[in-house]
């Protein structure tokens, strides 16, 4: 039949079309099974709107867990313009509550955006204002909780901590440096909306914000508070240009405290000058160290076995001639004949010129390199200085002489502390650090743990031991007497450096410094304190910085629970010094016997009876001559 061809071709079309239907179903199946995840995620992004919930920033803690940088919860205003039905009314009311113009508010309310923040008027609202907005119950007007950085101790450790901006972003100091860790992960309330931004009647999804990591420091709050208190006193008393202090554990490089003046309150950093904000003096400042540098010169001489501190002697006639320069001793007429240990105790410049000459310039400067002067210490803080050391080619006899007693080179405080720590700890030059660990607050897992890092060996253990003894003698017998603490072995060295500007030394403008070590037989802490251009004071560090250092050392002893030591050098008393005695045990003695035993002290009795049944202070405590001992009498 002639239609057979037609029918065949129609069947071909039928099969072709059926195949196409299979293709369509197959394609839908493919899209719904294999592309499901990808498309769902993309579509979810399209359908959902997020109301962000800010994560709390990680805390910054001291070594004992005391919070130095905390968070306060505040409330912020968030608008979803598409959901606001009564736009005009909302604009007017919000403008009134927030104290902005209605025109300004309308810009926010009518903005074509999914989520609008009213910035900055709507940020960090007071409870009062937040309550007022809450009470209006407007659609599309939300109040979200935000965490705001708060520094409970104000100025304490401000330069090291740094500060954050309005969006909690780290802007300086540790806040900037560890921003990545401190910043948490934003959470959100996710709701579904149509393409016009209206909320759909589907349940919201809450994603919890993930708080930032906690940063634990090596800083000890008690030591830090002591430094801050004393520097504040220094400012009050001497009105210096600058003042700074560092405490470091010489055994491992942990910074226990560091402070500087001028300082600032990171809660209100906007009120301060950028030069104040940016200069973390203990690591940034660079100046001629003066006599504290003599510790390094002495170490070099001892290490090279050029002199025996106790046996070799030096005669100081009051000055020494080096080429065209006459270098004077600070003591008019000189110290006369003395051992080199006494040279250190007396901080006698001509004696150090001699040491420099014994070493020669190559040796002396190689020790400067060895102790890390002229290079950054690598402390985990921004803004570290390098200091300036003469290039060897430009060192003549005069430079050699002055460098030996700490003039003519420029170093940073942290370099000095690190070098002196190396002298004390058996010769290890360490990298100082302030961040002890970074911890995930919920799980407590540790992301980063800083440990002692040795850069190189400097001097031998024996030299180090000799130096510890020598520095103890400076406090007990030499220029550091005012730092002496009875019952503890304290080492130290004073420094008074003349300040130079444009190559000329300034008149009556000094940096007074002091290095303190506690306990000197087994150092737990090295303190360095420097006061730049103190006014109204004697121009000797022994009178200016040393008493301050002593108070800080006492606080360090308390904070680190350093036990009393035996076998220390007894102080070489001068008439004004107080004498200390052990209190004898008088319990069980009669009143008369007790009075005789306690002849060096004032005695106060209480109670009635024949015999002493209790005493305060207890036996073997060391107290000043003439101090009061209380006794309780009974039968």
């Amino acid at each position, binding site marked *: 039949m*002639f*239609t057979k*061809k*037609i*029918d065949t*071709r*129609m*069947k071909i*079309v*039928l099969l072709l*079309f*059926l195949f*196409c*239907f299979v*293709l*369509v*179903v197959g*394609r*839908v*199946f493919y*899209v*719904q*099974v294999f*592309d*499901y995840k*990808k*498309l*769902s995620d*993309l*579509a*979810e992004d*399209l*359908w959902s709107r997020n109301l962000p919930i800010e994560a709390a920033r990680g805390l910054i803690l001291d070594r004992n867990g005391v919070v130095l940088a905390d968070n306060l919860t505040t409330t912020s205003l968030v608008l979803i313009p598409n959901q606001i039905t009564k736009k005009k009314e909302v604009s007017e009311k919000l403008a009134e509550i927030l104290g902005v113009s209605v025109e300004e508010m309308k810009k926010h309310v009518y903005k074509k955006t999914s989520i609008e923040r009213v910035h900055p008027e709507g940020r960090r609202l007071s409870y009062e204002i937040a309550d007022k907005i809450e009470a209006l119950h407007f659609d599309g007007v939300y109040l979200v909780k935000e965490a705001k950085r708060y520094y409970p101790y104000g100025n304490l450790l401000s330069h090291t901590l740094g500060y954050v901006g309005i969006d909690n972003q780290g802007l300086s100091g540790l806040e900037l440096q560890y921003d990545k860790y401190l910043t948490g992960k934003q959470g959100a309330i996710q709701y*579904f*909306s*149509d*393409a*016009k931004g209206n909320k*759909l009647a589907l349940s919201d999804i809450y994603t919890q914000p993930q708080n930032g990591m906690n940063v634990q420091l090596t800083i000890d709050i008690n030591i830090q508070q002591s430094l801050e208190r004393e520097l504040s006193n220094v400012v009050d008393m001497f009105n210096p240009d600058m003042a700074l202090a560092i405490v470091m554990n010489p055994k491992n490089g942990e910074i226990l405290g560091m402070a500087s003046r001028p300082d600032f309150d990171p809660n209100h950093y906007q009120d301060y000058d950028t030069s104040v904000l940016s200069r973390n003096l203990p690591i940034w400042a660079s100046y001629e160290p003066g006599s504290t540098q003599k510790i390094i010169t002495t170490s070099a001489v001892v290490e090279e076995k050029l002199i025996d501190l106790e046996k070799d002697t030096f005669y100081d006639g009051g000055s020494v001639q080096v080429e065209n320069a006459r270098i004077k001793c600070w003591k008019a007429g000189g110290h006369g004949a003395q051992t080199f240990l006494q040279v250190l105790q007396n901080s006698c410049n001509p004696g150090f010129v001699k040491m420099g000459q014994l070493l020669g310039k190559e040796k002396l400067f190689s020790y400067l390199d060895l102790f890390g002067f002229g290079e950054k210490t690598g402390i985990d803080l921004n803004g570290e200085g390098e200091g300036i050391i003469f290039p060897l080619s430009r060192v003549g006899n005069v430079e050699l002489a002055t460098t030996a007693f700490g003039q003519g080179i420029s170093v940073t405080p942290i370099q000095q502390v690190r070098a002196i720590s190396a002298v004390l700890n058996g010769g290890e030059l360490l990298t100082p650090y302030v961040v002890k660990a970074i911890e995930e607050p919920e799980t407590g897992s540790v992301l980063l743990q800083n440990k002692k890092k040795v850069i190189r060996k400097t001097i031998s253990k024996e030299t180090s031991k000799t130096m510890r003894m020598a520095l103890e003698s400076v406090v007990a017998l030499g220029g550091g007497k005012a730092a002496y603490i009875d019952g503890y072995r304290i080492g130290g060295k004073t420094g008074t450096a003349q300040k130079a500007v444009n190559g000329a030394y300034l008149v009556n403008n000094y940096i007074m410094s002091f290095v303190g070590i506690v306990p000197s037989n087994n150092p737990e802490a090295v303190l360095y304190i420097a006061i730049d251009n103190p006014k109204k004071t004697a121009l000797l560090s022994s009178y200016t910085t040393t008493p301050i250092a002593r108070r800080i050392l006492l606080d360090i002893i308390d904070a680190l629970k350093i036990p009393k030591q035996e076998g220390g050098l007894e102080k070489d008393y001068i008439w004004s010094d107080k004498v200390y005695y052990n209190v004898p045990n008088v319990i069980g003695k009669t009143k008369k016997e007790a009075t005789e035993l306690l002849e060096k002290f004032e005695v106060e009795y209480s109670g009635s009876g024949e015999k002493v049944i209790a005493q305060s202070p207890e036996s073997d405590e060391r107290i000043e001559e003439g101090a009061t001992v209380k006794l309780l009498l009974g039968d």
Partner: protein
Amino acid sequence: MKKKFDIPLLIAVLILIGFGLVMIYSSSSIWAEYKFQDSFHYVKQQALFVLVGLFLLVLLFKMDYHILYKKSNLILGLCFLLLILVLIPGIGSVRNGSRSWFGIGSFGVQPSEFAKLALILFTSKYLSGANHSLKSYKKGVFPILLVALLCFGLIMLQPDLGTGIVLLMSIIALLFIAGIDMKFFYIAGVLGVLGVVVLILIAPYRMDRITSFLDPWKDPLGTGFQMIQSLYAIGPGGLLGMGFLKSRQKHFYLPEPQTDFIFSIISEEFGVLGVLIVCSLFAFVLYRGIKIALHANNLFSKYLAFGFVFQMIFQALLNLMVVVGLIPVTGVTLPFLSYGGSSLLISMISVGILLNISKEQIE
């Protein structure tokens, strides 16, 4: 005794139309509420067309369709006239960028839809009369092709590519089954490919248009927009679907979801099951339609039945393949299911004639 006809075909079509009404409600209610404050706006209009369509279906089922054979020249002539008239501003109105409508109140009539039917009618008559002259291109093939291309050209002036393609392909399919040499299709195929190549060489951006359906994310707000929105409906629906009325893409994401992209909403709400049912219904309509054509007792009704079935199913496949991202967006409605009066009416008229033809065979 009552005359018998293809009842299963009628049932399948009625199910499709009924499901269409339900889905038009589901997909359009949000837009309708937004635009007209009446979520039933589109359903009500479509229901009215369904009633008119049913009337036409019954009418064409009952009448002697051979009248159409006699009047086919007149009908086509009328359609040509309307196709020209609709292009004149002031008479034809523009919707969605095409001047293809005669607006009557809120209703619109598309003459191109009716032209599709009229051309099939005309071609069927032509082919049934000129069976032997098809051997000659000059006398048999070219004249009818010329008529079809003229019609295509007029529709392209609106412009309405989708309808144009459906119309042209239906005529080519009729020529195919009428038994033209395969050589003709080879040559036409080569010419077509050459034409596309030349068009792309002239303006390379056309290539992007063609490939954008492969990766719609290349231009997510332009050519890829509809494709992406459609995939966002189909994909997240998953195998089981979101559930009836639970589509999210209909919330203003997919523009006019009740028209060309109603199938996206079906797969979003009913998953692969809904897709399978809709495709099966169309495949069933195809099968019954071809069966009617196979058993047609004269050449004219054979061509006519095939032409109508082909046109309906080709358009359906064109729509489905666009919606699921197998071919570039062309812009045709899904017969029976999409919102749209003219489209529904001609589909129901086609079914009426098909059922009419089926009557004779069973007698």
